[in-house]
């Protein structure tokens, strides 16, 4: 009999041989690090040899007490919460609406939109972070576009002033108009704008009016310097924008795939009964996706609390640590300056605990308000 050839012991051996590699790897990346973080967060370990090196011991919950009083910790936590909020109230609804527009064929070329909006997800967040840091910088795309608009407007005004004056005909009135057109800039450039500007203009050859106009645009045009990423009170906004920019497409794909599983006849029936698209969306599609939405929210929370690389590349937590996240704080505590491993491990543990708490809350909300899946 076959049964007797392969006994229970062969079965058990096979089971453990198959499961053990995965279990060991799992312990290596998750089990042991969690244990290490628990132990080291209450120790005075300073990075030496853990076994048989300099002695270290358990000293208690000092690091956690320190964190509770640490304003940088709360600031970082607040930024993490902002990211969670932008994800849940920005990425999810936008992703859902886009998915619905494509699903109901309200917009054509669904494949194209989907393909474009998902694109940021496959690009390295390091590239994305650096790219947006450049775009928001004083040398970047936004500054350039704004300055071109300013330059275009003042160039237009200067041309009009000279046309009205009939060419190179420098009267005090023309100078006054030029100063007026420049707004505050002339006052910042010259101590006595009317005389100095007139002297400056008169150094030009009267036949080279175009050259004069060009130089005046450069001289008098408003220079706009974006301070998004260098001003502490607004620096978090570009970061949140990029996070929204980056991951909305993921939820679009997730929701669209699940919408396509809905029985089309239900929606057709609702439409024939006179339901508007808005009603179909809120009464038919939204309820049947509630389970998926909760999952997406959990995914969002877990991802948001752990976000590191994008912000690390974009601002590195600056200026003055206002865009710092828990993960960046942890990184700096361990790898920047004098390492403080107990503190870093206390932060790591807080991130893990916080994700668990938020996920449990989301699960409870799901139970309370009934996800269908």
């Amino acid at each position: 009999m076959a049964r007797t050839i392969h006994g229970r012991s062969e079965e058990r051996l096979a089971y453990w041989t198959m499961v053990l590699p995965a279990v060991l790897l799992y312990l290596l990346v998750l089990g042991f690090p969690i244990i290490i973080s628990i132990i080291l967060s209450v120790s005075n370990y300073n990075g030496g040899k853990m076994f048989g090196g300099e002695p270290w011991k358990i000293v208690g919950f000092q690091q956690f007490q320190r964190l509770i009083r640490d304003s940088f910790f709360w600031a970082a936590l607040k930024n993490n919460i902002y990211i969670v909020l932008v994800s849940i109230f920005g990425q999810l609804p936008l992703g859902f609406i886009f998915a619905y527009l494509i699903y109901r064929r309200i917009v054509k070329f669904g494949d194209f939109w989907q393909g474009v909006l998902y694109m940021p997800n496959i690009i390295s967040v390091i590239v994305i972070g650096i790219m947006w840091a450049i775009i928001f910088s004083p040398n970047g795309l936004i500054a350039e576009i704004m300055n071109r608009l300013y330059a275009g407007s003042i160039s237009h005004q200067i041309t009009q002033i000279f046309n009205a004056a009939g060419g190179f005909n420098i009267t005090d009135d023309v100078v006054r108009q030029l100063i007026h057109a420049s707004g505050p800039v002339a006052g910042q450039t010259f101590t006595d704008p009317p005389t100095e500007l007139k002297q400056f203009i008169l150094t030009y050859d009267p036949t080279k009016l175009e050259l004069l106009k060009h130089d005046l645009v450069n001289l008098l045009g408003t220079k706009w310097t974006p301070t998004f990423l260098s001003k502490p009170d607004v620096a978090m906004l570009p970061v949140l924008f990029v996070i929204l920019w980056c991951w909305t497409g993921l939820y679009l794909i997730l929701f669209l795939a699940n919408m396509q599983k809905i029985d089309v006849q239900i929606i057709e029936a609702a439409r024939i009964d006179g339901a508007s698209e808005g009603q179909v969306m809120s009464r038919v599609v939204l309820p049947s996706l509630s389970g998926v939405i909760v999952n997406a929210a959990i995914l969002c929370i877990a991802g948001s609390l752990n976000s590191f690389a994008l912000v690390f590349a974009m601002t590195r937590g600056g200026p003055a640590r206002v865009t710092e996240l828990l993960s960046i704080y942890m990184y700096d505590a361990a790898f920047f300056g004098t390492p403080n491993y107990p503190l870093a491990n206390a932060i790591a543990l807080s991130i893990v605990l916080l994700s668990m708490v938020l996920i449990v809350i989301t699960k409870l909300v799901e139970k309370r308000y009934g996800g269908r899946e």
Partner: protein
Amino acid sequence: MPEPLKNQPAKRLMGVLGKGASYAVMGIFAFMTIAPLVWLILSSFKSTTEFRLNRVGLPHIWTTINYPGAWKLGEFSQLIGNSFIYTLGATLGIIFFSILAGFAFAKIKSRATPILYGSFVLGILLSIQSLMVPLFIEVSQLDRLLTDLFRVLGILKNGQVNFFYDSRFGVLLIYVGSGLPTAIYLSTEYIKGIPYALVEAARIDGATYFKIFRWLILPMSVPIATTVAILNITGLWNEFALINILVSRTQLKSLPLGVFKFTSNLTSDWGKQFAALVIGMAPMLLFYIGFRKQITKGVAAGAVKG
């Protein structure tokens, strides 16, 4: 029914307006997605001097001069090779070990399964990135332990063992481990769908579990293996947080680390910086263009509940 008929023109107007608004919102978002990327690519074909004067438009003089410089400075030939090794090695590892464990969880009865499988499913939500500091301490301490052990055994006279920290093998281990929870969940659920009668028939014919794995389960799991591969390839290729702390030698670094170097060193050499960014995103962009349908499908299938 007179009621709906009366509303018809108003409804149609609303429909047209709604359609217009939908296209507008969609168009704006899509434009905002693609414009920065196009700008980045265009800028990489301008010399640094031209970029200073012409930051927005098409290049007046198209030049590829930035690319050789950035390539050499970032040591990208080395880094891209490493990225291939890490991505392919870890993807194959994740597929193999997850199907192996998934087979055991799904088809071999054991009292350990609920605890083990349950803890893997729990792990889907815990990101290993938040544990990078304890992970770093773990790998460096493991190497020190091994060094001591080898010295005691007399295998090693002097020097250090780099088995976990600062080694390709260490990076691969961590990458495979971090991909396992999701992959094991997907594989187990998939293999549960394979009829048990097939396994039983093979058992009665005298096949060992390993033979069944090799000749029955593995071939039948190709679809889920593809999903797992698609789910992991972009993430592994772009991974930064872990490898940033796991290696220090340039010979072992991956592409994102090379691109990151350009933030600090070269802020004034725009041309090279843009070229480096394009080099950083080009491989995955091509992969996406080639396999968009599969990637989209895999992502939708792989976003699992915890």
